[in-house]
């Protein structure tokens, strides 16, 4: 999953826009944006594992905002040990050309110590949109962990993944109080573009996405 390979896969699937959301880190987004050079547009994101083991996507206006949020998440993660590297693999931070520019020193597969409301507040404080990740899936989703939709958490949207599963809470998915986005939740190159959201907006920026979520002035999340 090098920046170049991600960009090629996204282009091959005809995507106009992608959000790079590594687990508990935002340090690779700038490199992917650089590799893409606007085709596709790249939004810097993060997939935070909250203390409840709920995955929350943060989508940010720029890589700096994503990094600021990522750094706060990182401070609550356990350190990565040689033993963890052996078990779970290396955690590379890549440059746009795919070379290793650094390594993540925290264990990114762990849960952060931020609870759901703290994670959403952090994302909002950094200017981002908070999206409940892959709510159709039985693992790490808000329904699986918390049983019922936590309206008070303040999500801006929810994401249904490419798995498009029919979980026991399917009825709840039809009655969500926030817009529904589709995302691939791609963990492999081949899965990039397996699901995508169709949007009507002026340009692929976070500000426009915010307007589309609100259904403002002709912008819209299309079915």
């Amino acid at each position, binding site marked *: 999953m090098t920046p170049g390979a991600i960009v090629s896969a996204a282009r091959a699937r005809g995507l106009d826009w992608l959000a790079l959301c590594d687990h508990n880190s935002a340090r690779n987004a700038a490199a992917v944006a650089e590799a893409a050079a606007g085709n596709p547009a790249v939004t810097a994101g993060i997939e935070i594992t909250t203390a409840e083991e709920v995955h929350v996507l943060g989508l940010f206006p720029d890589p700096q905002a994503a990094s600021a949020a990522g750094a706060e998440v990182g401070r609550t993660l356990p350190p990565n040990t040689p033993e963890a590297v052996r078990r779970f693999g290396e955690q590379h931070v890549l440059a746009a050309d795919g070379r290793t520019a650094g390594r993540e020193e925290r264990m990114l597969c762990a849960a952060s110590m931020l609870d759901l409301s703290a994670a959403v507040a952090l994302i909002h404080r950094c200017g981002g949109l908070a999206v409940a990740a892959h709510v159709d899936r039985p693992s790490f989703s808000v*329904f699986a962990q*918390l*049983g019922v939709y936590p309206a008070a958490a303040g999500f801006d949207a929810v994401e249904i993944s490419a798995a498009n599963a029919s979980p*026991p*809470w399917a009825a709840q998915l039809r009655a969500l109080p926030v817009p529904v986005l589709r995302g691939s939740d791609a963990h492999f190159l081949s899965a990039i573009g397996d699901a995508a959201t169709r949007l009507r907006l002026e340009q692929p920026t976070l500000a426009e996405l915010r307007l589309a979520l609100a259904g403002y002035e002709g912008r819209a999340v299309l079915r």
Partner: protein
Amino acid sequence: VNLRRLGEKLGLLVLTPELDRELERDVVVGHVSDMLSDVLAHAPAGAVLVTIQVHLNVIAVGSHAGLAAVVFAAGRRPEEDVRRKALEERLVLFASPEPAFEVVGRLYAFGVKGRHA
């Protein structure tokens, strides 16, 4: 065995001492899970739930499932809003510094058994 006595025997901290009447309730079934979707689907009515999940939804789901009590294990403590909601729903809350496995083992020794709803 009733909840008050169970709490004393297991050295649990009662987070909802206001619930006098509910603490007299007898429990014979238990459930252990940190996934509230599983609690919704499988916890039997009248059960004591042992969990490390401290989100507010524990109370909503616990009431819906008809739980008698929740034990927050491993030193986890919910926020005050969780406790207030539990008082509204009349759901007894306990806390224990012991790991969930230890709490469940002691409950079992006092005759509290597991079964699916």
